[in-house]
């Protein structure tokens, strides 16, 4: 599992590539939590377009990160999930808690607009 991180101001774009099973989850969990716990992080886009496989360990990883993001008032969105990965995301109703987008670009646009609304509303 490869993880690439791009940061711009308060947003983090995290691109995952590879297979998201229990073995991979053990390796990336702390890194994801580190980003979510940074005080400067207000939004995280998880680009899963490169994830070719996921099982319930991956579902658990995403569910726990969505809880942590909610606790820290970080906006978490998921982009690019394949139909197979999307099926598992829906199985645990994660799609009800985290917005899903077809592409990272769409997700980044959504997050930017959301941040802009927060700025306007103070």
């Amino acid at each position, binding site marked *: 599992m490869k993880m690439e991180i791009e940061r711009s101001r308060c947003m983090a774009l995290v691109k995952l590539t590879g*297979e998201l*099973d*229990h*073995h991979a*989850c*053990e390796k990336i*969990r702390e890194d994801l939590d580190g980003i979510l716990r940074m005080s400067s992080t207000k939004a995280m886009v998880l680009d899963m377009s490169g994830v070719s*496989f*996921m*099982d*319930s*360990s991956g*579902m*658990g*990883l995403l*569910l*726990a990160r969505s*809880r942590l993001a909610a606790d820290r008032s970080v906006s978490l969105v998921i982009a690019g999930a394949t139909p*197979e990965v999307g099926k*598992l995301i829906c*199985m*645990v109703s994660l799609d009800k808690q985290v917005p899903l987008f077809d592409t990272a670009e769409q997700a980044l646009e959504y997050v930017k607009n959301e941040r802009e609304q927060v700025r306007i509303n103070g």
Partner: protein
Amino acid sequence: MAETNRLYAELPAISINESVSRVMISGFLMNIRGVTVGEIEEVKVALSEAVTNVILHAYPEDDKGKIYIKAILDGNQLTLKVWDKGCGIPNLTRAMEPMFSGSGSAERTGMGFTVMQSFMDGLDVRSSVDSGTSIVMTKHLGIGT
């Protein structure tokens, strides 16, 4: 007459073997007449769940045993068995409930058996405390065959 093929593997119950088992079953299923990529993906997920269960729950941390995998292909009918010789599951009925996790970790969804049931046609789980657990899954592969 339908062709029969068999696969048998014994792997140490360590997490790197989750992906090893998936590569193995993909190769085993690849040349079945009419099989789809989606069907192979579903079998891979179900197998990964069963193998991960063994790695996480069957053996003590300091004494990892083996994962046993047997696949039988009778024409387009797949029977996949995954078993261990570990601690067994004390309350199997409860363990098979959706969202139940014996570990208590926030990282576990307790959806392993539910995923296996959803992605395969049949699921039979047997367990005996201190003897081990066996999971037998069946699936007909190849749309229209």
